[in-house]
């Protein structure tokens, strides 16, 4: 079943002082199936972040549509958009986006508190997640007291706790050292194997090689996509690298 469907997405930014408009997304179409683990790759400026912001309903496309479980994001009223985002989407960011005024536990609870859940229900939900992510003993700490890897795991916990349809991850390994990044990617795989749909934006080949499918974006368009199928991480890594080289050297589309 298709969870996310993106049709002919286009985004043009016009600068405030009447400069020439910048086209961030030209024509992007793809879909994500339920239980899939997809990655979007592209260089800086390729439109990755714009795409993710539109998927996250933080930004609106110039044209085209995004359907989450068949429901168009643009049809949701402004007032309901936050609640919709809270209940259907989970986010993991490069810079964690944890609030330093809250303990890690409260950071994780934040979306649930906003939805008006009781403390008992929140702790009931947190317990298995915390065990899986191995953050049970740091929950009382504050973001500035723990390592980057721990912060990111808490951010993942925050994304998971709402049981979202789709988790969007923006450069999740970008601020982590290689060991922490490896741990996070393993975690993503594990979550995915339990049925969670994941969409990750990254320019790390290593990160992308863990995904089942990799979409390449160049100049605001889906340039190419790779399926992992039965490949090992290493083989996938090689294949992604090759594709990136081809893209960089200006080769045409193939496969």
């Amino acid at each position, binding site marked *: 079943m298709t969870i996310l469907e993106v049709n002919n997405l286009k985004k043009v930014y016009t600068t405030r002082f009447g400069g020439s408009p910048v086209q961030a997304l030209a024509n992007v179409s793809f879909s994500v199936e339920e239980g899939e683990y997809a990655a979007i790759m592209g260089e800086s400026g390729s439109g990755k972040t714009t795409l993710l912001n539109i998927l996250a309903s933080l930004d609106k496309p110039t044209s085209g549509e995004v359907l989450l479980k068949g429901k168009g994001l643009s049809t949701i009223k402004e007032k309901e958009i*936050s609640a919709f*985002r809270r209940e259907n989407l989970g986010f993991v960011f490069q810079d964690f986006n944890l609030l330093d*005024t809250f303990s890690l536990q*409260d950071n994780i609870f934040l979306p649930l508190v906003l*939805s008006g859940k009781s403390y008992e229900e929140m702790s009931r939900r947190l317990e298995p997640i915390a065990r899986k992510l191995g953050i049970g003993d740091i929950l009382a700490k504050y973001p500035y007291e723990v390592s980057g890897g721990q912060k990111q795991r808490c951010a993942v916990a*925050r994304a998971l706790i709402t049981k979202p349809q789709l988790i969007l991850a923006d450069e999740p390994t970008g601020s982590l050292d290689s060991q922490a990044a490896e741990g996070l990617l393993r975690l993503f795989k594990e979550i995915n194997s339990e049925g969670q749909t994941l969409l990750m934006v990254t320019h790390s080949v290593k990160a992308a090689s863990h995904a089942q499918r990799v979409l390449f974006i160049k100049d605001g368009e889906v340039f190419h996509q790779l399926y992992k199928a039965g490949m090992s991480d290493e083989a996938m890594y090689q294949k992604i690298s090759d594709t990136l080289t081809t893209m960089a050297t200006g080769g045409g589309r193939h496969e």
Partner: protein
Amino acid sequence: MSRFFYPKLAATNLKKNAQTYLPYILTCIGTVMMYYIMVFLSENEGLGKMAGGSQVQSILSMGTYVIAIFSAIFLFYTHSFLVKRRKKEFGLFNILGMEKKHIARVLAIETLYVAGISLGAGLLGGILLSKLIFMVLLKILNFEVPLGFEVSGPALAAVLFLFAGIFLLTLLNTLRQIHLAKPVELLMGGQTGETEPKTKWLLVVMGTLSLGGGYYISLTTQSPLAALTQFFFAVLLVIVGTYCLFTAGSIAVLKLLRRNKGYYYQTRHFTAVAGMMYRMKQNAVGLANICIMATAVLVMVSTTVSLYIGMEDVLRTRYPQHIMISTPMPAQQSVEGLQTSVKEVLVKHGLEGKDRLDYRYVAFVGNQEGDRLITNLSNISDDSSSVREFYLIPLEDYNRLAKRTASLGDDEILIYSSGSKYEEDTLTVFNRTFSVKERLDSFFENSPNRVSISGSYYVVVKDMDVVKAMEEARAKENGDDPSGYRYYLGFDLEADEADISAVYQDIRTALGSDYPGSSIESPVAAKESFFAIYGGLFFLGIFLGALFIMATVLIIYYKQVSEGYDDKARFEIMQKVGMSREEVRGSIRSQVLIVFFLPLVTAGIHIAFAFPIITKLLAVLNLTNVGLFAWCTAGTILVFALFYAIVYGLTAKVYYRIVSWGTSG
């Protein structure tokens, strides 16, 4: 490198940081102006020559010290805020290859610019405004306004000296900070120390105790004399309590709220509690400053205004009758001689004394202990609250004045108490015990010293023999000569001030040297010096009030700006995590509102608790019109709150512009 590189860079820096530097420079200009004007007034020769002018000037010169100290602390404080915001910039310069000495050079030039602008504009404004303020002061004092315009050399010198010192100090402090810091630290300067505040229970307890202590003193102090000594102590306690409770108490309360899970994990409370904790940690001291300053402004302005408005009341309280003569007897002349002299003056002016009050009396001071009066001077205790003034008056005089035919035994008295109630049935003084036959509730209202800072008792005894016996006992106890009794004569006149003043002068001349040790008082004669003192205080109160308000405005402004920068990031995160823009806006707005109105509300509570002790202090200054003071206080609070709200509204705009809703939308 071009010779103009550094001056140019310094100018660009100031322009780039205009949002924070402009208010700072404006404050510098404001303080320069105020200091110049204050020195100008306190040194002004014309004012010094006017009657009562020197009293005013001694009050004003107190004001110059207050302004000088305040300016130094305040400008130093705000400047350190500016530097904190700019640390990143300095770090960037450092990394781009400027050495610290180059940065120091730029900073020195910047300081020179700021000092130049502030002193230039401030002095110009001060000189122009000084004439206006001078006229306002004279108007307040009821003085004649002379023509002419002058620039005071000594005032100019004082301003240059003080502010050159302040600017130099701020520069040195900045250089010290830059010198000590590493470039990376400078780059990170804006974002260190976001640790969760600890609950300091000791401070909470201390704060509660000292605030409670301060309030307790205010509520329980009965005698005005005690109020005089206790007030300062109470103020100290309240200041300490305010600081402790704003810093530690707020955190403790928030942590308790957080511990209550049912309360804390509700959408509305969740972000508010955590956000407030963070804000209080950053701003507690600043808010406590605002609170104390607001309280100071309110107390200063409300008391000086009510003293000034209540001047007629004050005069009437201090001088219940238009002419009040008190003279020692027996003198060369008899009582009849005095009466005749006064009569002659009145006849000459074609006036008649009204509500005449005259009696012989002996006065002494002692400590009241139950029904005993301890009069031995060496034994008078430090406890000022038990000090009483006693006036012994013979029955004969009382009966004559009250048109009564009361009779008393040798050891019986009538007593009229003022200031503190006399509730015993007997009174023992100089080992002689009297029984109270009757408590009078009227008659001596217009006696001099009726409202004294301690309590007064008017005791009517059987006859002059008792009076004299008591005076002899007093003299014997203290080892000096009996001074005999005194004679008091007071009356009102139905005439205008000029006539009363003339009568006053004539009686004064008539008494001349015939009655050594005699005194004559009149509200009309005292008016000038009262206007000088209370008018001076009023002026000072308004002037310093304005200065403090300016400081409050600046602190609020800087709070808004720094909060804005901090909140911008948090606001974006909250939106990403699923809070709607409206929710975030509402949550932040309510937090900001609490933060800004907390000091005002606290100041209001302080004032409410201070009210009893301040009314006692005002009684020392002869203002007994509590209603007037209450109105003045309420009015001052209202005006201040209005002003505060306007300032808040204006600065909130800056805040919302920084946070700029919708950047991430």
